[in-house]
């Protein structure tokens, strides 16, 4: 934000689904090493923002810079190769692959087997339950386990920037805590995290900085602690 070169920067990004103008000029900047969150109501364009960063739903206009290099014209696999990983919304894992095969898919672009094995061990220390489920099909895991699997899969590419799309969606409060605990651990290991959430309180209280989105636009951006105190956010998203 202030001079320090950000890991990810969006400058006036517009995205369309056919005729629908989903992102109407998004600009944001995420510093190295921290946790940033994007909160907003359903349909505000939060998931679209993540898909646009990854190139799945390409930006029609604007610039996306990863580590200062433009990535807005890259295909998803090229973005992934640069060191970005993403968990899709609604815990999209591969339902008919075993949990181990799912994790292996996360390392699809990697050739360094020894290092990949280390990362697998790390994912297992992060989410011990996955180690007990290696041979079980992804689709038969519980909701919480599927979220862990999706995050584990994203980590298998050893990303420098991890994009999480609603990690708390549909999970029991206790599991949400576990997931956010894991997010903090991942962040401490050196991965920058950008997460999209509807659970504004959980997201803001675990982040360094936050953005608030409404119908395709960023309407507020500030320190996460400051946003938690802001009257506007309290009223609209925290239900106070």
């Amino acid at each position, binding site marked *: 934000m202030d001079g320090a070169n950000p890991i990810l920067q969006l400058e006036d990004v517009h995205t369309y689904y056919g005729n629908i103008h989903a992102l109407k000029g998004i600009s944001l900047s995420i510093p190295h090493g921290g946790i940033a969150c994007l909160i907003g109501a359903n349909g505000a364009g939060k998931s679209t923002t993540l898909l646009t960063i990854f190139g799945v739903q390409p930006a029609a206009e604007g610039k996306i810079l990863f580590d200062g290099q433009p990535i807005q014209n890259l295909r998803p696999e090229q973005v992934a190769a640069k060191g970005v990983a993403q968990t899709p919304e609604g815990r999209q894992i591969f339902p*008919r692959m075993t949990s181990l095969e799912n994790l292996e*898919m996360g390392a*699809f*672009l990697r050739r360094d087997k020894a290092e990949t094995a280390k990362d697998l061990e790390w994912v297992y220390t992060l989410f011990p339950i996955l180690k007990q489920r290696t041979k079980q099909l992804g689709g038969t895991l519980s909701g919480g386990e599927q979220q862990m699997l999706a995050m584990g899969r994203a980590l298998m590419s050893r990303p420098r920037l991890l994009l999480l799309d609603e990690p708390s969606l549909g999970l029991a409060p206790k599991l949400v805590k576990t997931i956010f605990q894991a997010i903090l651990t991942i962040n401490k290991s050196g991965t920058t995290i950008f997460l999209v959430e509807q659970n504004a309180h959980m997201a803001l209280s675990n982040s360094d900085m936050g953005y608030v989105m409404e119908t395709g636009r960023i309407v507020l951006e500030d320190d996460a602690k400051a946003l938690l105190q802001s009257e506007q956010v309290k009223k609209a998203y925290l239900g106070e």
Partner: protein
Amino acid sequence: MAKSDLKKFFVYSVFLGILILPMVGFPTTSFHAGRAFGVWGVFVAILAIGLIAKTLRGTGGYRKSTAGLSSLFSPASGTIKRIPRKYYISILLLMVIIFPLVANRYMIDVGITCLIYVVLGLGLNIVVGLAGLLDLGYIAFYAVGAYSYSLLNLHFGLSFWACLPIGVALGAVLGCIIGYPTLKMRGDYLAIVTMGFGEIIRLVLNNWDKLTHGPNGLLGMEKPLIYYPSLGEGGLTWEVFKLKSLPGLYYLIFILAILTIIAVNRLDKSRVGRAWVAIREDEVAAELSGVPTTWLKLLAYAMGAAFASVGGAFFAAKLSYTNPNFFIFMESCIVLCIVVLGGVGSIPGIILAGVVLIAVPEVFRELQTYRMLAFGLAMAVMMVLRPEGLIPATRRKREFHEEKQLSAGD
């Protein structure tokens, strides 16, 4: 004997009765009871055998022996593991190899057709089974192989072996051309578009009189030649042997089929194969994992088309004749049936289904016009009783037995 199985048996028998009795029983206005009940009886007997087999298997000893940990896996795996894979594969291979020595010409001819369809089924399995792209125009690539060999041989005198790679390349390129506009489509839309492309190719072949001689087809292509070294008076020379005999052609397609099996098996187990499965499972998740979905989908079309093209070139060479009516929509359906009936994604299943689907209608020839009815019925019954296919792929088996696995896992 489980009560539900018995109930199923009666329901199916009655259903078959309703279907068969009037259709087979009234060739004219009078009812032929003997004939109608005869045909019905055959099907009921098949159902009864299935029921008995299931009951015996249920009470058999092997289940007890695999109790405990291994009950996590599907119960069907127990029986197959008994016989080592190596043995039954070599026995099967031996049977296929000696087949032309003991069979008559007609049987060898059916055998050749079976093997062609095995190649086609395995090729389509890449597109439908692995990458999950429903292709209803697959037979078009078979036509491309047949016509590319025919035209190159007739006009330029190129040999079968020279035409094979050219046909494969042409098929692959066409696969990409057809695949490209369908990249963003899924499911039923994709099926309709591929069906349309399949028909377009057939109609082009049918109407481009100058090049393809239209519905009359092309005639007089050379049979494949085999070159072998011989030590004569003039030192080492290469002798040429024309593969005219049916057994010779049988062995040629046999070798082509084996090569296809090896290639598809390796693809299945490769990184690319895994990526195809990921695309089939969830395209967005695959993209987010760094799978280049666009390229891999095109590759699936190209690879599938390449194998069909090999089959087509052989088919044209064997008959020395080809015409557009060999490549109607029904043929695409049959190949798709082979893939589905055999078990989507399962190589042994598709081989078995290829043989069964092509050979069985021949066996039913006695029934004359009813043989397609018998065929259709067999398919319908099969899909109800065993939706995962004859020999399901491990992944599919898991899918259809998910609840069992889940309860065992908890």
